[in-house]
């Protein structure tokens, strides 16, 4: 595909259930980000993958959150034992090789709107 693809677009889950969110980055992009955005709020950094470097997980809010990425392809964000405060839009972004303008242009997916009831 031409852009970053996220699935599902919307997810409603019961409190305490686990959810898995998927991100397909643009082919060839080495960098991948996950962000959380609550209504009317800014981007909350969660995790950053860059090539073969160790991911920066410093933004994950608790040990209920984890993310994986296989090489430079698909990434999944998993939230275990979901809580109501996890309700938000989860955005994935990818960017090109670091040599390309410092990997500056991040392309965003349409997001997954997660609602925990």
């Amino acid at each position, binding site marked *: 595909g031409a852009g970053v693809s996220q699935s599902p677009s919307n997810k409603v889950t019961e409190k305490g259930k686990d959810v898995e969110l998927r991100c397909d980055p643009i082919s060839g992009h080495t*960098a991948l*980000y996950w962000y959380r955005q609550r209504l009317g709020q*800014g*981007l909350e950094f969660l995790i950053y993958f860059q090539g073969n470097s160790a991911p920066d997980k410093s933004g994950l809010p608790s040990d209920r959150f984890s993310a994986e990425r296989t090489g430079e392809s698909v990434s999944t964000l998993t939230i275990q034992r979901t809580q109501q405060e996890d309700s938000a839009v989860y955005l994935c972004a990818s*960017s090109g090789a*670091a040599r390309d303008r*410092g990997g*500056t242009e991040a392309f*965003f997916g349409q997001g997954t709107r997660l609602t925990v009831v």
Partner: protein
Amino acid sequence: QKEVEQDPGPLSVPEGAIVSLNCTYSNSAFQYFMWYRQYSRKGPELLMYTYSSGNKEDGRFTAQVDKSSKYISLFIRDSQPSDSATYLCAMSARISNYQLIWGAGTKLIIKP
């Protein structure tokens, strides 16, 4: 203190006004400076990109970087209602593996 500070607004101006949006930062290693625009219920999209200090103009938009003051600006001339959106600044540095660091975003409202 956050690495990048940005007033969340909202900033409301009449149509046709010149808009000035700003960010300050603390990390002198930042080299790449960007402005993204985010419409409601959409992901952010890159609007302007600048490397190091200086000005860059693209149509009605001008980006300025003053590294000595650790201050960046985005100016919008002849503002239109369609410019109403949230504007986020972002910056990165080679030393931190080009990881983007974001401001909180400023909500801009252009009144017809």
